[in-house]
């Protein structure tokens, strides 16, 4: 397996020394087709992603739609200062980070585990059947998911609570009590997205060479050893890349879901940056303020991505770039 990684990391066909300026022109000519292929994509990113980037500067303005970008006054770090000095900033930061960590710890590994479980199924039809069903919840909108959870967990004739009442003679206000909020959020995310999350790992698993299993079996390797030595290494780089990219959205909490689950009684643990900015924006379309908060979130994401990518490379992984 190690060999594989090395083989794919470096080009075996072209051994031109890299980085010496004298070879630059030669390299460019050699790779002319590759550069041509890059062109549409690079243009796309420049036009649709980089041209609008000036919008980030709105964070330093008091942007109003009717005065436009050029006509809006510059206010420096006003919005950042205000954001960091909000009385709720500490609470928001804590809630957002805890939720993000819960997500990484409890949600992130599950699609991998589920994909591995499906990978162990020999019966092709059963496997297809399971695959087709588990990805359905992804298409159910948050409004409907939250509605279904309400039906299950509410204290007024909710199915789970009726059951609890019969079993322990007591009801639990899952949807109201702060201590249940994160559990509810994470379990909804798991239910909705775990099957969808397996798709990419199944694709990675589909690329695993079957002959390797064959060889391992001849060597007397059991299922667990095959899993450990063949399957997992094959999807390792996919796992690492997905993890690093997920860190880029570390402070994004999934606005719609949380907004729908917030109640006056669980807000102390449930309010996150995204919902807070939304509430603020209700009275005033605060483009500049939300741009400032967005910029803050992006910078945190950037630091996390670059840091973890550097770490991954230190450990000999390919990383993102």
């Amino acid at each position, binding site marked *: 397996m190690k060999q594989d990684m090395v083989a794919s990391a470096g080009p075996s066909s072209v051994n031109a020394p890299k980085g010496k300026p004298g070879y630059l022109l030669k390299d460019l000519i050699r790779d002319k087709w590759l550069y041509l292929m890059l062109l549409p994509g690079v243009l796309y990113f420049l036009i649709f992603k980089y041209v609008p980037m000036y919008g980030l500067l709105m964070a330093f303005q008091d942007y109003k739609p009717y005065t436009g970008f050029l006509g809006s006054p510059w206010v420096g770090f006003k919005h950042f200062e205000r954001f960091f000095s909000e009385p709720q900033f500490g609470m928001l930061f804590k809630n957002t980070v805890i939720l993000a960590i819960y997500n990484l710890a409890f949600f992130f590994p599950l699609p991998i585990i589920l994909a591995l479980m499906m990978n162990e199924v020999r019966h092709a039809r059963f496997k297809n059947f399971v695959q087709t069903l588990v990805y359905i919840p992804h298409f159910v909108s948050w409004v409907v998911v939250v509605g279904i959870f309400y039906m299950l967990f509410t204290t007024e004739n909710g199915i789970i609570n009726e059951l609890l009442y019969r079993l322990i003679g007591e009801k639990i206000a899952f949807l109201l009590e702060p201590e249940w909020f994160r559990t509810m959020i994470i379990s909804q995310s798991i239910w909705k997205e775990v099957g969808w999350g397996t798709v990419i790992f199944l694709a990675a698993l589909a690329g695993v060479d079957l002959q390797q299993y064959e060889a391992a079996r001849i060597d007397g390797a059991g299922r667990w050893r095959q899993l450990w030595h063949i399957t997992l290494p094959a999807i390792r780089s996919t796992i690492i890349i997905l993890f690093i990219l997920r860190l880029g959205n570390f402070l994004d909490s999934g606005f719609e879901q949380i907004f729908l689950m917030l*109640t*006056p*009684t669980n807000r102390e643990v449930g309010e996150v940056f995204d919902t807070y900015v939304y509430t*603020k924006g209700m*009275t005033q379309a605060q483009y500049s303020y939300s741009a400032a908060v967005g910029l803050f979130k992006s910078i945190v994401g950037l630091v996390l991505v670059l840091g973890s990518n550097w770490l991954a490379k230190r450990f000999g992984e390919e990383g993102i770039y």
Partner: protein
Amino acid sequence: MTKKWALLMGSAMLVTTVLSACSSNNNGQQEANANQPVADNPAPAEQAEPLELTIAAHLPGEAPAEDNPFELALEKYTNSKLRFQWIPTSGYDDKINVMIASDELPEIVKVSYVPNIISSMQNDVFWEIGPYLKDYTNLSAQPETYYNNIKVDGKLYGLPVFRPVGRAVLQYRKDWFDAKSLTVPKTLDEWYNVMKAVAEGDPDQNGKKDTYGMMLDKNYNQGVASTLTRLSVSQGGPNKWKVDDQGNFTPEFMTDEFLATMKLFNRLYEEQLINQDFAVSDVSVIDKAYESGRVAIRISGGNAQSMQTNLEKVVPTAVMDAVGLEGPEGVRVPGENGNAGILAIPKSSVKSEEELKRVLTFLDQLLDKEMVYLINKGIEGTHYKVEGDFTIPLDKEADAKEVKPYRDVLLQRGESYNMDKPMQQTPLFKKNNDVVIENEKHVVANPALTLLSATYTDRGADLEQMITDAQTKFIMGEIDEAGWQAAIEQWKDAGGAKMIEEYKEAYLKVQQ
């Protein structure tokens, strides 16, 4: 493998062809000819030429077909060429802001009275139409309040999409009240007794404790339809804000009436006489409970007749009734803003005073008798017919699809203006309607409705949430009265006190 390659290449070719087809000429698709905003060619306002108008408004359930008979009739009468730009609700505000930023506003746009729009009004994005109003018969004939309620710094920047100002009506299960010999509650004690009697008396006689006097949804204390406000107003409390002669403002939640109302609900909650999960209940869930005959009373802006119709499907013997929301001193209801949005005229699309006058003429014509009938009832023979002193609806489904979308957006005041033959309705519908009309005499105005406060603009939603959260916690017994007082202090410190001052300042300025 070659086959697959061919397939891939084929699809790539297809994409390329489609792409190039696009860049050379734009007719590759179902691109409607709506590309060009009409605003680009301001035709000289000659009376003979039909006026070209685009109106941006909220998408109803489903957009009506273009150039349908309704639109044609409207265009013919007003000598105009109309285009309705229906914008879905989930992106409405963003779309309007993008249109403002890119100068793509149509001639008429429906906006809400919110700080963001108010500040664009102050910055001359829209025409100030106040001075012109007197020249238009219908527009100038409408009650002042409707206009006053949407003024900014005393100036009028649009026309209100008229709605009744006192919509709160008490709808209740008359059959249950009769069977249990209950009377419609007036004082808070009576409210408590009725709630208890219904919740514990098994009025549906199914042997289960599954009925409530009233059910709340999670928005029970939000905005104009707040149940807490409605009840506390009926008990003599203010509508959102109280103001004295010196201009000192007090928020409703610092008044005794409001606290008493909260205490009532706290007691009801503790004794399990209202739904215990109200803080998470969607309004759709509550609607369903009402429709399945599990609840006795509702204070709402809906009509008892539609409740009756829905209820009958599940409980054929149910009887609904509607009465005014009475307190110890008679009917007292919070006054609402009297509109469902504002039709504003942007300066970027309507460039000259002359054009403005034509657009205003169009809007004025909407309140002409012919148009009142069209907008309220549809096309005669298709949607309604005349019989004696009444009109009778012919096809309610067609009305909902073909007329209601326009009725919701265009100017109309129902039976209250220029309509001599009202729609024939069931007695219950009429009774409910009469309560609404009667309410107008008993509305309690919100004195802060059009006052501007920088703090409100800046953090109004925050402050509001702070206090509505505390109300819920108080009702649920999570905080006691001391905790509630602490929450009020916190609200004051966070900007509430400043808001009170700013309202006073703005109020005194207007009073002078």
